[in-house]
């Protein structure tokens, strides 16, 4: 009865390693296909069918599987397969999973489905279950992900997408199941066999999730066809989604002189200008979806970076020395769909992400200290036509302080199909309170409409000498000379001011406002101005005034404007000449602020940059 064998050696550590181990078998398999393989449909009826072996996945509980002679799906059955899924934290393994395979293949081309009966100790979900996992190439792997089972025996069906492919299949059955909310469970499977069913049908297949995508491209660019989907209609009339390997799809290019596609769906642009459409079929069924490559010919490189290498920490660029990077695509399970098809044109390496939802780049060994940097630079190119404006989100993660910050760039639809250079101040990643140990850059398709993008020249930089912090004025602004009865003062020690005025309104600005004393004279100081408002204590009728007076001082500002605002808001700006040499005084005719309602002035505002000192803001007449 118990003729199965366990392979628990390191052979099973990772599927990726196994692919390498078994790659050498490919040629032999082709030869073997000429021989006739047994067509035995049985996998496990009352025990292992002839030639069947079992191997547990690495990391799983190796003893999760056993043969159960007590619990069976019918009186006629004398044995079932029992699987015990471990609780979270089980030292024996984190999940139950393994492969039932034969040493030599079976010819399953006369069947169209794998069927079995199953039940569990509770209504639960088996993570993944199917066939075609042969511990090797897994070329024709198929599974249902998230198979719901109940406490009663029920028959389950996993369709074979194209039976003609399975002439020498070794992977007869496989499964992987983890705990649910930390709790393990037990499930049984019985009567596992291949059948030719007339009760399933209407197969549907799709590439690119069924979408017809159009992508601008260039000679030398590679991409991939993702978003592979398949459904079959079950005997209950319901469509069942199954996950199927790319090898079931036959990809085709409408013009191989423009683009070629291999059997795995990898696309390489070979010529241009011109257009090629990539389509696929499974067996005799055309798959929904297509990828139209519009090759523009010679590759358009990203703009050459301009920043001094001295001021750069580079993650990915051919123009700088890059820091060690763990990976440019973490393939984070389970929600990431993004795949990579990075390419090199004329020695220019370019990252290419497709089937994009989010993707992370990690540089954790060692992490990057970007405290001396001011900006993140990324060049991106969206090769697909955008159906609407897009939101390209970047998250920076600091492993030291365990903090992260997110910045989102709006990309208008007409910016697709060209290089876009993003230069984002690191201060514009709210929440990133430390950048001493940066370790990840995560790109997110926040609007959900960017199918793919190229990326190049990803680096942090210091934008060079920022405006030198200006010295403070050595003396206060000149004392005003206008008679007080001709003055309505907003800010001045020399006059009675409009009561209740707010010099610190929070309008979302970055400017740091303070009131300092210079030789005992109160002076407004705007540090790092972007904009800053002044909310008058009450609405002011200044129709009988003639001028707005301002004294201002700045050593580093290159732009400074003053706005007057009446309800609406109706606002008009007046440009002030900066930087100044010492204190500048100006009397701006109020007519300059038309169409602001001078009978109802509510606010003033300054915009610009740099560090500004301001005093003696008042209306006056002669």
């Amino acid at each position, binding site marked *: 009865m118990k003729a199965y064998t366990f392979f628990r050696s390191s052979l099973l550590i990772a599927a990726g390693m196994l692919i390498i181990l078994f790659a050498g078998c490919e040629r032999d398999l082709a030869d073997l296909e000429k021989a006739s393989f047994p067509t035995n449909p049985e996998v496990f009826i009352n025990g292992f069918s002839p030639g069947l072996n079992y191997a547990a996945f690495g990391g799983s509980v190796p003893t999760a599987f056993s043969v159960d002679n007590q619990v069976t799906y019918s009186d006629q059955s004398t044995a079932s397969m029992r699987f015990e899924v471990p609780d979270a934290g089980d030292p024996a393994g984190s999940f139950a999973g393994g492969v039932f395979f034969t040493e030599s293949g079976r010819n399953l081309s006369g069947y169209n489905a794998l069927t079995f009966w199953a039940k569990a100790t509770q209504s639960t979900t088996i993570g993944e279950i199917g066939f075609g996992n042969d511990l090797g190439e897994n070329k024709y792997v198929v599974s249902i992900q998230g198979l719901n089972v109940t406490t009663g025996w029920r028959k389950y069906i996993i369709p074979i997408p194209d039976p003609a492919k399975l002439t020498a299949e070794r992977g007869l059955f496989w499964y992987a199941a983890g705990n649910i909310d930390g709790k393990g469970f037990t499930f049984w499977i019985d009567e596992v066999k291949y059948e030719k069913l007339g009760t399933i049908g209407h197969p549907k297949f799709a590439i690119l999730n069924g979408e017809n995508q159009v992508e601008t491209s260039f000679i030398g660019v590679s991409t991939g066809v993702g978003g592979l989907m398949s459904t079959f*209609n079950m005997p209950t009339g319901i469509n069942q989604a199954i996950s199927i390997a790319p090898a079931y799809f036959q990809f085709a290019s409408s013009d191989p002189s423009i683009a070629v596609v291999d059997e795995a769906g990898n696309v390489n642009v070979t010529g241009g200008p011109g257009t090629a459409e990539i389509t696929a079929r499974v067996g005799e069924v055309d798959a929904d979806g297509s990828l139209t490559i519009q090759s523009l010919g010679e590759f358009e490189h990203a703009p050459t970076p301009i920043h001094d290498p001295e001021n750069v920490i580079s993650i990915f660029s051919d123009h700088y020395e890059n820091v060690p990077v763990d990976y440019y695509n973490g393939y984070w399970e389970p929600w990431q769909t993004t795949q990579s098809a990075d390419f090199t044109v004329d020695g220019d390496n370019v990252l290419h992400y497709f089937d994009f939802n989010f993707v992370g780049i990690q540089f954790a060994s060692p992490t990057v200290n970007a405290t001396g940097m001011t900006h993140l630079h990324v060049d991106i190119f969206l090769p697909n036509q955008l159906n609407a404006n897009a939101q390209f989100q970047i998250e920076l993660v600091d492993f030291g302080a365990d903090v992260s910050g997110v910045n989102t760039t709006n990309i208008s639809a007409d910016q697709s199909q060209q290089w876009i250079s993003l230069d984002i101040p690191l201060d514009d990643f709210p929440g990133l309170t430390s950048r001493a140990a940066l370790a990840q850059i995560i790109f997110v398709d926040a609007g959900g409409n960017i199918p793919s993008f190229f990326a190049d020249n990803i680096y942090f930089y210091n934008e060079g000498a920022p405006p030198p912090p200006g010295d403070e004025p050595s003396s206060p602004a000149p004392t005003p000379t206008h008679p007080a009865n001709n003055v309505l003062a907003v800010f001045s020690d020399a006059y009675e001011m409009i009561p209740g005025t707010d010099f610190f309104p929070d309008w979302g600005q970055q400017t740091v406002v303070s009131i300092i004393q210079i030789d005992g004279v109160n002076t407004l100081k705007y540090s790092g101005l972007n904009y800053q408002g002044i909310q008058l204590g009450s609405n002011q009728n200044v129709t009988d005034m003639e001028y707005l007076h301002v004294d201002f001082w700045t050593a580093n500002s290159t732009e400074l404007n003053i706005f007057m605002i009446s309800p609406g808001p109706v606002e008009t700006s007046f440009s002030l000449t900066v930087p100044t040499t010492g204190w500048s005084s100006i009397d701006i005719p109020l007519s300059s602020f038309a169409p602001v309602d001078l009978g109802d002035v509510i606010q003033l505002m300054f915009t610009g940059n740099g560090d500004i000192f301001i005093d003696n803001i008042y209306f006056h007449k002669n």
Partner: protein
Amino acid sequence: MKTTYKFNKSHIAYFIMPVLLVFFGCERDDFQKLDERNWQLVWSDEFEGEAGELPDPSKWTFDLGTGEDGWGNQELQRYTNNPENVSLDGEGNLVITAIRDGNSFTSARIKTQGLFAQQYGRFEARLKTPFGPGLWPAFWLLGDNVDTVGWPQCGEIDIMELRGQQPHIIHGSVHGPGYSGGNPVSGSYTLINGRFDMDYHVFAIEWDEDRIDFFVNDFLYQRIEPEDVPGEWVFDHPFFIILNVAVGGSFVGFPIDQTPFPQRMIVDYVRVYTAVD
């Protein structure tokens, strides 16, 4: 032009061996041995025409809208005469398409009322059904005195009905006074390893004053005689033909999220014969 078809029923059972007779396993062995009859074609629509054309207006008319209380069955669809819901496919078929638009559905129901009705004979259609929970295709007859005596007094003969969640089972029924709605006299026919939506099948009745015989692919699976109905036998006047695809309703239940749409009933032909000596 009139063609006389001759059916020899005694041989028919041999080439439908795979069929499991669930409901009639206890019937006598010679159940399939029917009298030979000569059938003369009197009315048909082969649905030849250009793709996108509406069905021949000399033969078919439409039921439109949502009827009263979803055509008496809480059906969800709105019937239209739009080509996207009902049209020829250019390959010799009529296609009735049920379309989902959010939570609303459109479909079509065509009938020969006022154009053709017949008492007794053979009524048959070759068609592929739609599928999926909540789909309810039907090929059926209604007494053409429905407007004067009402339903169910007029009588109803359902030659083929199917629940989309059971695409391997069809039902044949008669409704009359005292046996209508959810309580008809009914039988069903099950494909043991096949489905009615994946291949064409021929659904037929043969009807005379003594009985109504129900066939799938010329296999007799049900005979209903006057003594079988718990009420008045009302199948003694002309009936007209209806083809429709309903969505939802008391017979089939609601469609669910996993119900694939659009759904099509593809009708190769409808033919009506009369018996000749």
